[in-house]
């Protein structure tokens, strides 16, 4: 299965469950190797947002954007031939993370938590209780589009502020 197909499937899944708890509870397997959360899950419905160009990202390695609103800084990175995107507020106490493009890790200058961008934001070591919230992105031609978040952004009762 090509990477593109996997991405499309994920997107399909995501759309189907947005706001529909009952379906989500039955379908966790589709997220295998991808989901950060065990069991079923409910997800809010998010707006789609264009965040930049694939070519530019490939060249520079990183792409800053915010999602789902201006107060939630995120970073898209190009790792192992794939676009991955994360919230860059440390899930420990909310310090801005620093990305190291050489080894694809996020490092927190406040209490030294380290997260692996190649492994869905897994914490390498550190004091956070959550992996990095993953922003779901889809690539269409040269365009990268954000369409959802798995994981709660630091300092929010809901990823979508009321």
């Amino acid at each position, binding site marked *: 299965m090509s990477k593109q197909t996997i991405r499309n499937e994920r997107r399909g899944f995501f759309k189907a469950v947005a706001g529909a708890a009952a379906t989500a509870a039955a379908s966790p397997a589709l997220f295998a190797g991808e989901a950060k959360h065990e069991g079923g899950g409910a997800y809010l419905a998010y707006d789609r947002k264009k965040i930049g160009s694939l070519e530019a990202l490939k060249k520079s390695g990183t792409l800053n954007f915010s999602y789902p609103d201006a107060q*939630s800084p995120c970073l898209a990175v190009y790792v192992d031939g794939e676009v991955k995107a994360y919230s860059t507020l440390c899930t420990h106490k909310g310090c801005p993370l620093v990305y190291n493009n050489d080894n694809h890790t996020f490092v927190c200058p406040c209490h030294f938590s380290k997260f692996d961008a190649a492994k869905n934001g897994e914490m390498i070591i550190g004091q956070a209780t959550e992996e990095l919230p993953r922003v779901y992105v889809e690539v269409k031609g040269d365009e990268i589009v954000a369409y959802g978040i798995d994981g709660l952004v630091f300092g929010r009762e809901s990823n979508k*502020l009321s």
Partner: protein
Amino acid sequence: MAFTINDRLPIPPAGCEEKNVTCEFCIVGCGYKAYKWPAGTEGTPRKNALGVDLSKQQPTYGLWASPQMFNTVTDRDGKKYNVIVIPDHQCVVNQGQNSARGGMMASTLFTATSFTRDRLKDPAVYGGNNLNRDTWENTMDLTARVLKKILDNDHPDEIAFKAFDHGGGGGGFENTWGTGKLFFSAIQTRSAAIHNRPAYNSEVHATREMGIGELNSSYYDSELADTLFVIGANPYETQTNLYLMHWAKNLQGANFDDKKKEYDKGETVQKGRIIFVDPRLTASITNAVELAGKENVLHLRLKPGTDVTLMNALLTYIHEKGWEDKEFVKNHTEGYSATLKANRVSLDEAEKITGVPKAQIVKTAEWIAKPKASGHRPRTSVYYEKGVIWGIKNYQNIASIVNVAIQTHSVGRVGTGVCRLGGHQEGYCRPPAPEGMPSRDKLVVVDKAAAEGDYLAFFIWGCNPFVDSIMGQRLGNAFKRRSEIVKRAIDRNIGADNETLADAIYRACKYDGGLFIIDIDIYPTFKSEVAHVQLPAATTMEMNLTSMSGERRMRLSEKVVDAPGIAKPDCLISADVANALKALYEKEGNTAMAKRFEGFDWKSEEDAFNDGFAGQGAKMHSQGGPTGTLASYDLLRKAGNNGVQLPIQKVENGKLIGTRLLYTDKKFGTQSGKAMFQPSPQPPMPKEVQRQLDKYEFFVTSGRLNEVWQSNYHTSRIPMTRGRWPVAPVEIHPADAKKKGIQNGDMVLLYNDYGSVRAVAYLSESVEPGTLFMAFGFPNSPVNNLVTDFVDPDTRIPFYKGTAAGMKRIGRVDDIYRSMTFKSRI
């Protein structure tokens, strides 16, 4: 199926129930607030229990929860409640900060649908290849009948127990008192061992005998130190918020105002420096470089087992330079010259033995002892932990450290101290052991004795010896074999009444080599395979619990939720055992024996507290000391998460007044009141370990990981930590890995004469070539399978940190490989 909301959390409504909780994990003892409210109700972003505006993005360090800080529980009233447990911004210990461990407390609460669903809920009795759920009454009656037969026909020492002696999760003053009173006062056995070691002993006999209690300083004082001297410890990973909330400030030079306020007039105020003594390069060291700058961090990367030589070289060199505190040594200590003589080591010899360059030893001496620019003595806070406690020889390792601390007067002065860093919180309150308990150097190594066939009954209380004791694999095999004998006897008596069954069990133990095993815990473990009786205990947040931290700060951690099923606090389980025995003796008209089991008519954990910690004072071995009697649940509740630092001085206007720093009066805990130097020459490699070293290629050491707590009972279940560490990692130097054809993520087999264990390869320069570091405490890959049966003959403390093993590659287990990152942790 467990159902999670991944991108929003319910909001605690204003006015909901709010409780104080002390972190159940490490000794730092961070304060948390628990909020609880009925499911189906909620606050609003603008009006809620926290009083923060959640309609906005919270700032860095803002007050709010992460998903792991939330849970939904069902109480015994059958109703569902939402709970959040968040770090307390008002607590002076952690000031609103959590570590990875503490921040997960809410998610470790029992729920029927989450990863905690297998918590033990009911008592159980073995029969027909199962542990069968049973009533408290019936389980206790059977247990008591077996114990009674032993007491009547044999000796109380035939009933052994291995139990927690700590505070925090599962421990605490209530529970150590309950178990202690049961075994020491009522049953009167001397066959005792502590949760993480094979005998009943202190881990710090040396410092106590030198007159210095091991927790003599405060976190605030560590902020004031000129030099932090850290030996055999990795505090970023194991005493996290002490390191991040207190030491970091000092290392960044961010608290000159406090230093000016606390120091003598005219004394030099400078940024803190830190020295680590560790064969391993750890995250504590690399992070310290970030905090303090390279020039303010020293890493003495010594050869394993040579700490004593290093300390003795410091003692010698500081004396040669005349940097000791002469007045203090002369008037308040004894044995200085004899110790100097016995411990004398030159810098050249020390460099040869330890592998630490001379220049680094000299620099260390300068940082800890050379007068500052103003002529004042430097203020040195000395900290040590398992690297030396569980090192080559427990007694000398610690004595050699305390020698240097006394020489430099690093105790009882502002900004100083010579303390263990600690594992769990503390919470010791027990009667003295029965008469005839041998001295420390003659103690029975109970775990080993049980493996060799001693004892008729064995309580394993809130600990897991097959993971946390010597020669884990042999121990497990022996318990299994002896358990099986009793199981067959039980299975031959299906349908029998308790008296007949108890008789069959007793005979299987007495005549056939069986061992009657009673397991008290919160989760099933390997013990479930060997236990004949299993009893479910309550833990933190399921009961009121008092403990004290690494700065002797005592708090009442309040009950928030009900324990699973019909689980009970350990103190009340102890009372049940005692009361069941009392009933049997009364029935028989044996008043003398019935009397021994009196005094357990406790209805709640508070009764146990009032009987023990608050009731006994100096009459018992209690960390509260004589003034413990001033404490009460009411006063502690009022003191909240800041509690009181023991010993309590007095109660003033309803407030408990405690003690920040010990030994400020220079009166030490010896007969003469003087601190006692102890000769401590370098011990040789124990022959048990040397035999393994001669035979196998790698030196194997072990230690804790930041994200894993002790025997991994919660953290092997929490999805995040289980995913991060599905099995224990073994750190291998890349050169060794190459030699062995091993890559990151390969499953490897480690083996020696004592046993074998599998681990996942994690390539790292944290270890030197020839040395492996394996994570400790994983029940599914226990490094202690490789640990020898050596114990320090003087203290009976094992050398867990040193053994040897061969290593070979097995292959790659794909899902483990996929689940883990192998990037550098340093």
